[in-house]
C-alpha cells in the first residue's frame, strides 16, 4: 500500500504535481507579464526614456543577463505548455465517451477553454517574438538607431502599431490573455493549496482585476499609437547642432 512516489517523481509524475508545476510556472509568467507591461508603458515618456530602458535590458550584466532571463522565461513557458498538453491528454482519456446531453452547472467559460486560450497565447507569443525580437516581418526594425546610437525601439513600436490591423491583433491577443488569467490566477492558488474561504473569494475577485489590468495595460501601447497619444518622432537624424 505504501506509495512509491516522492519528491520530483511527484511533481512531474502525479496529477497534483503536474498542476503544481502549472501553477508555479503560471505565476512566474504572470510576474514577468507585470514587469513587461510596466516597461512597455515607459513608451508614454517618449523615445529617450523608452530606448534607454530597452538598452538597459539588453546590456544588463554586460549583455549576459538578458540571455539568463530569456532562458528562464523559455524554461517556464515550455514547462507550462508541456504540462498543459500532458494534462489535457490525460483529462481527455479520462472520459472517452461524453454525454449525449451536455450541461454545465458552475464552470466558467474561461475555465473550460484554458487549452484554447493557452494555445492562442502561444501563437501570439511566437508571432510577437518574430515581430519585435527577431524582426521577421520587417528586418529593418532591428537596424534602426536613435541619435544616441541605441536601437530605436520607440520608432519600431510606433511604426508597427500605426498599422491598425497590427494594433488590433495585439488588442485581440490581450483579450485572450485576460480570459486565460481570469480563471488561471484564482486557480493557481487553489492548486497550491489555499483552502481559506475568504482568501479564495478575495482572490477570485482579484483574478478579474489582474486579468483586466494586464490586458488594459498592454493595450495602452497599441491603442495609444492608433489614437495618436503616442506620436512618431524623427530620431534617426542627429539633432541639429550636435
Amino acid at each position, binding site marked *: 500500500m505504501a*506509495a512509491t512516489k516522492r519528491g520530483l517523481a511527484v511533481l512531474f509524475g502525479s*496529477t497534483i504535481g503536474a498542476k503544481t508545476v502549472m501553477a508555479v510556472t503560471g505565476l512566474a509568467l504572470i510576474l514577468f507579464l507585470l514587469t513587461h507591461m510596466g516597461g512597455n508603458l515607459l513608451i508614454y515618456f517618449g523615445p529617450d526614456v523608452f530606448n534607454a530602458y530597452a538598452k538597459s535590458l539588453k546590456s544588463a550584466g554586460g549583455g549576459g543577463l538578458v540571455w539568463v532571463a530569456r532562458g528562464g522565461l523559455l524554461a517556464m513557458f515550455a514547462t507550462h505548455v508541456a504540462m498543459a498538453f500532458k494534462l489535457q491528454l490525460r483529462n481527455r482519456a479520462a472520459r472517452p465517451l461524453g454525454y449525449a446531453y451536455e450541461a454545465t452547472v458552475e464552470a466558467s467559460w474561461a475555465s473550460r477553454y*484554458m487549452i484554447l486560450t493557452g494555445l492562442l497565447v502561444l501563437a501570439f507569443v511566437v508571432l510577437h517574438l518574430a515581430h519585435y525580437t527577431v524582426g521577421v516581418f520587417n528586418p529593418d526594425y532591428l537596424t534602426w538607431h536613435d541619435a544616441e546610437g541605441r536601437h530605436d525601439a520607440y520608432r519600431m513600436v510606433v511604426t508597427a502599431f500605426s498599422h491598425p490591423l497590427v494594433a488590433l491583433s495585439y488588442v485581440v491577443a490581450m483579450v485572450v490573455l485576460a480570459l486565460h488569467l481570469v*480563471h488561471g490566477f484564482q486557480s493557481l*492558488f487553489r492548486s497550491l493549496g489555499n483552502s481559506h474561504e475568504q482568501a479564495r473569494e478575495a482572490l477570485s475577485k482579484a483574478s478579474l482585476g489582474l486579468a483586466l489590468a494586464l490586458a488594459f495595460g498592454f493595450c495602452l501601447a497599441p491603442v495609444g499609437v492608433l489614437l495618436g497619444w503616442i506620436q512618431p518622432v524623427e530620431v534617426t537624424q542627429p539633432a541639429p547642432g550636435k
Partner: protein
Amino acid sequence: MNLTLKVWRQPSKSAEGSIQTYEAKDVSPDMSFLEMIDVVNDTLMEQGQEPIAFEHDCREGICGACSMVINGVAHGPNKATTTCQLYMRHFKSGETIYIEPWRAAAFPVLKDLIVDRSAFDRIQQAGGYISINTGCAPDAHTTQVEKDAADAAMSAAECIGCGACVAACKNASAMLFVAAKVSHLGLLPHGQAERKTRVLGMVEQMDDEGFGACTNYGECEAVCPKSISTRYISRLNRDYLTASISSEI
C-alpha cells in the same frame, strides 16, 4: 404527467450502447425519480422487454448508489439531492429527459445506467487503516478534538462515495472524493499517525485508476449531494505536496 425518456441502454460491459426512447405515461408528481423508472420498467416487463438497469439501495439519500446523469447533471437538477430524493414535481409534463450513466474511463458501464465504481474502493483501500485502540469504548474525552476540526472533518465525512463529482467534472477527476476521504481522517487527531502514507497512497491509486486532473471548474461541488466544498481539494493539494517532500527523519 407524461414524459419522454431518452435512456442509455447497454446490455453488458463489452456490448455497444445507444440512447433509446421511452414514453412514461401518467407519472405522479409525488413519485421519486427512481419510482418513475420503476413504473416504466413494469411496463417494459409486461411488454416482454428488458427493464432499465439502475443501481439503488437506501432510497433515502445516504448510500450513494442511485447514480445517473439527468439532463446532463449528475443526480438531476436539484442541488444537494440524490436521484432517489428527486421528485417528479421538479419536471414539467411533456418534457424530454435524458438519462445517462456516469461517464468516466475509471467507471466502466456494466449495464445500462450501472457503472463499476470499485475504483473508489481501491482508493479507499490504498488509504489504509488508522492506528487506534479498539476494545472497550474509551472515555469520550480521551482524545480532545477541537470543535472547528470536528466540524470540518464531519463535513468531509458526509461523502457517500456516489461518484457524482467524477461524473460532473469535465476532466472526470476524482479529486473531490479523494479530498473528502483524505480530510475526514486527516483533520482529526486520530488520523495523524498515518496521515502522510494515507494521502500519498490514495492519490497514487487515484492516478493509477485513470481519473483526470483538477482544473478547479467547481462542477463537483455544485452537484455533490452533500455539498462538499472544493476547499477540501485545495487542502488535499497541500497535504499531498507536504507529504511528498517530507522524509522519515
